[in-house]
């Protein structure tokens, strides 16, 4: 029976349904019993039964798939557990190894920092830009909105990411071909392109320097000076560009953020804009003085969500750098590193420690954000 994987999973799915119904009945019955002991009326007893009966799938799943795993992984993170060996208690060795010795973990931290400091502002401003464009109430707004959101649906599929890899090919990828054609035909674009390349390479060399704790590469980039006329970005080719490809994908997939901003723009009272217009404020002025301050709660929300998302980027890194062992560490996200470190040698103990560090980091980031929020988020004008 278990030879055929499809029948096997079908049978197990049916068994799961049976298990869930049974545990729902049990949980509901237990709740009704307790309600009876507390002397609730018959109707309230019935409602208690029904409530726990219907909520049971989530409650049971929460215990099995969230609470139990978290407790177990907390225990394993202090052991050297490696399937199939039994765990042995290590105290804090996993954590000290992770924080003090593990170079690849440190690069995943620096990469996440890079994506947050450089990528997230680009992503948020592009999302805001698109939202403001859409908010002009043009004809065909729905079609535009659809095409701006489409990348969010497609962007996590390996198939579409492979297409990006084709397009980002440094030699004959379409993106560099377009850049070359524009540079050759239009001199200011060539200078702009080279200036961007120079800045990107300096910033990336700086972050790689933090990671390696020496700035030789930064010096080299600086001494090489302003890029030559035939230079193009080396997207999926060198450590100086590996993170930029991920940022391009982040910016491309900004549709959810855009929708949040669009909702925010819709919530701004029309009267404010009308009153300002009467006073002679232009649209540029009104954007800076009215829209932007009132959008700060939405910017805040997108920043929190975006930072947590940056920790978890997985698919793009897998598709772009899976087979490139030297380049991959320069673009790892923390979750990608978690996957690699754990499942290469089934190191459950070490992986559990990484999971807990990631969890605590997310918690800290969120708390800091909520603290800082008070300083710059405006819920009302004046």
């Amino acid at each position, binding site marked *: 029976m278990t030879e055929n994987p499809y029948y*096997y999973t079908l049978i*197990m799915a049916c068994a799961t349904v049976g298990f869930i119904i049974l545990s729902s009945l049990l949980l509901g019955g237990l709740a009704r019993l307790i309600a009876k002991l507390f002397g609730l009326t018959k109707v309230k007893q019935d409602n208690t039964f029904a409530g726990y009966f219907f909520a049971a799938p989530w409650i049971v799943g929460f215990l099995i798939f969230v609470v139990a795993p978290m407790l177990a992984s907390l225990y394993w993170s202090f052991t050297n557990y490696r399937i199939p060996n039994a765990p042995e208690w290590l105290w804090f060795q996993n954590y000290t190894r992770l924080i003090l010795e593990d170079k690849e973990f440190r690069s995943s931290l620096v990469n996440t920092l890079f994506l947050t400091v450089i990528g997230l502002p680009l992503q948020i401003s592009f999302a805001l830009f698109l939202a403001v464009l859409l908010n002009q109430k043009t004809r065909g707004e729905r079609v535009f909105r659809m095409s701006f959101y489409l990348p969010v649906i497609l962007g996590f599929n390996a198939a579409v990411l492979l297409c990006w890899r084709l397009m980002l090919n440094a030699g004959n990828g379409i993106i560099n071909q377009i850049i070359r054609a524009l540079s050759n035909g239009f001199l200011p674009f060539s200078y702009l392109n080279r200036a961007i390349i120079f800045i990107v390479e300096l910033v990336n060399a700086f972050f790689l320097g933090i990671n390696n704790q020496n700035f030789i590469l930064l010096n080299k980039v600086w001494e090489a000076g302003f890029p030559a006329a035939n230079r193009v970005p080396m997207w999926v080719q060198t450590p100086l560009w590996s993170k930029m490809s991920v940022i391009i994908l982040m910016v491309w997939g900004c549709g959810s953020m855009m929708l949040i901003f669009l909702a925010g723009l819709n919530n701004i009272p029309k009267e404010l804009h009308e009153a300002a217009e009467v006073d002679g404020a232009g649209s540029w002025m009104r954007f800076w003085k009215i829209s932007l301050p009132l959008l700060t709660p939405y910017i805040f929300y997108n920043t929190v969500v975006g930072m947590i998302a940056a920790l978890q980027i997985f698919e793009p890194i897998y598709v772009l750098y899976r087979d490139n062992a030297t380049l991959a560490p320069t673009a790892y996200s923390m979750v990608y590193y978690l996957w690699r470190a754990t499942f290469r040698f089934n190191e*459950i103990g070490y992986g559990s420690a990484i*999971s807990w560090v990631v969890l605590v980091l997310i918690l800290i980031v969120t708390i800091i954000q909520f603290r800082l929020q008070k300083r710059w988020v405006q819920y009302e004008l004046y």
Partner: protein
Amino acid sequence: MKRTAFRVSGKVILYVVLTFASIVMAFPLFWMIATSLKTLQEANSPQIIWFPSKIQFDAYIAVLADPDFLRSYFNSCFYAALALVGTLISIAAVAYAFSRVEWPGRDLVFFLMLSTMMIPAQALIVPQYVFFHRLGWIGSFNPLVIPGYFAGGAAMVFLLRQSMAQIPKEMDESAFVDGANHLQIWWEIVLPLVKAPLATVATFLFIGYWNNLLGPLIYTQSSKMYTLPVYVAQLLNINNPTQPWPTIMAAAVLTTVPLMVVFFFAQRYILESVVITGLKG
């Protein structure tokens, strides 16, 4: 006079910018389709070739003749469908408990559920892997399908709960008087009234399952059980001197077709609900 001319040119610029942005955003899709219809020489050409000089279906024929591709397509459909049904029904049940029934502890449990949205799913994969390992489920579809049956996805429960809470209370009260029980009210009265939100949730779930890469990578260990994303990703082999891009892109197009179809039919609801839940992807 001057002012209207200014307005008109502003509108034109707006449309130009919007159209340009749309083209840029949809460009990878166009490029995927265009490349899949090219010859190998055209796909690897150092010149820009926007459209294939002669439309080639060779890549599609090659992909569709590959039993590995067809098997991974079936695997994806099988696991996504099976997981979708269970997840959808359990989510509908839990949303009913949170919206239509008054029970002690409801607010606490609801708060707990919302706070799990803060926990990234990936932080739990390591201990869950051990759990499935002990059950002997590694190398089967079970770890990809079964967890969904326990109302996987707090954001989806939240979305459905919001819709169910808007149904007037009198609906089920009159049914109670007629002697119906909760199970009947849930299935026969409430669920038919939330068909559109159910379709939205189903769409989100489908997209999530269809795109899932990390889960299949961890749990399906033989190539016979590859789902589409895993299969497609390994088509690119850096050791090859030239990549068979038309074939890879043909497989990619066939992989994204279900997503496109689903998005086309459900886009209105999707765009609305993203704002309700504020969820990502």
